[in-house]
């Protein structure tokens, strides 16, 4: 029986869809991390890789549970040979020019902040679990992160878009800063991410309680006294720092 052309159209669409679906599965698998309690644990994550990643801070780290490295603090653990810190700040840009992300861990609490320096920003919270983190925020914003000493990667989903990121651990003054202030009678919530090279990315939410908050670019944050000038009003920011526990 001769196939009618509408059927051929449908079948062509189905074949293209299945092809892209398979390609997407491959793309997602290859982007999945191999460390820190990810969905695809790789037994090949060797202690040499871990110590190379940990550089000078943890030369003696091994995955053996019976060996405790003196240079690693007792609270830190290992997963697949990677050292999993309890206190860390990760910041960096997300892929495809979509903005920046900061992930800050302090013991059992993790805070993540995504912003694009203008219209979109989201605060997310989560609980660290052996190198893996799932964070959630308002409006369905969420992120999945795998992290280890020095490095974190994952995906963040904000307002219907997903961004992949692979970011590094930083120390002050790089990191995450927040300000919640009353300006001209309204509560404004601002966030700044200071990248490893000193670049600031900041957004300010003019009404954090609005159902669909609209953000705009935050005023420049002065890192020496942690203040910013919002249209003539001086607002004060605090550091959210996993290493000192400030802001937690």
């Amino acid at each position, binding site marked *: 029986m001769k196939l*009618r*052309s*509408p*059927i051929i*159209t*449908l079948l*062509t*669409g189905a074949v*293209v*869809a299945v092809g*892209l*679906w398979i*390609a*997407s*599965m491959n*793309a*997602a698998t290859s*982007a999945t991390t191999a460390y820190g309690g990810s969905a695809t644990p790789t037994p090949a994550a060797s202690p040499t890789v871990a110590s190379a990643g940990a550089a000078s801070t943890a030369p003696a780290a091994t995955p053996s549970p019976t060996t405790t490295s003196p240079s690693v603090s007792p609270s830190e653990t290992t997963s697949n040979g990677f050292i999993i810190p309890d206190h860390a700040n990760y910041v960096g840009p997300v892929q*495809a*020019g*979509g903005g920046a992300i900061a992930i800050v861990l302090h013991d059992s609490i993790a805070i993540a902040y995504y912003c694009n320096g203008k*219209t*979109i920003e989201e605060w997310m919270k989560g609980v660290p679990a052996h190198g893996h983190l799932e964070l959630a925020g308002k*409006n*369905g914003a969420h992120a*999945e992160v795998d992290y280890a000493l020095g490095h974190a990667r994952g*995906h*963040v*989903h904000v*307002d*219907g*878009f*997903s*961004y*992949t990121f692979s970011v590094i651990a930083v120390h002050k003054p790089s990191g995450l800063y927040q300000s919640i202030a009353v300006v001209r009678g309204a509560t404004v919530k601002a966030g700044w991410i200071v990248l490893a090279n000193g670049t600031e990315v900041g957004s300010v939410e003019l009404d954090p309680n609005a159902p*669909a908050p609209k953000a705009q670019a935050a005023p420049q944050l002065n890192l020496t006294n942690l203040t910013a000038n919002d249209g003539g009003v001086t607002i004060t920011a605090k550091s959210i720092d996993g290493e000192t526990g400030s802001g937690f």
Partner: protein
Amino acid sequence: MAAQFGTPDPQATRRDPIYQPDNVAKILVIPALIGCVVALTIGLYGKLHHATGIAVNIAGFSSPGSVKAWLATVAAVLALVQIGSALVMYGKVPRVSAPSWIGGLHKWSGRIAFIATIPVAVHCVYALGFASYSTRVLIHSVLGCLFFGAFTVKMLVLPKRGVPGWVLPVLGAVVFAALILIWFTSAYWFFSTFGIKR
């Protein structure tokens, strides 16, 4: 996006006052059920599958979002061609008689529009999933499922004989309306939020 393949021959069959199938529902029930299965499959997979945030990307664009916005815009523009050519074919445009190539225009604009929507839909369903965290996103998710269901019904009904004259225009209108609303809740939102960018 009413890809209307068999060049309509309303005088011969669909509006034939003598030829009336004993039961029109019998012709339409199977395509309708298959369309429902398609829509439900997309929706349930999108809801149950753990959204990965990643799908294949197309080179030359700044982000998956902009690829999708532009492909959706191509589909939406071709959908306007679809409506225009359908109106001409059905003789609804005063003082315009259907040229011989109008059927080909309708078929090929429909085919291209449909294929353009596929990468967008795969990315939506695979990387983002069926979501409901805002009105825009909920409308978009529901209509996305409806669109492919309705398009499937239309394609399956097209080759059938004895279909009442109102069926194809209605199906085409549903497919067109769904696509345009999908475009407004995604590409239009994208361009107005992030600016028109490649």
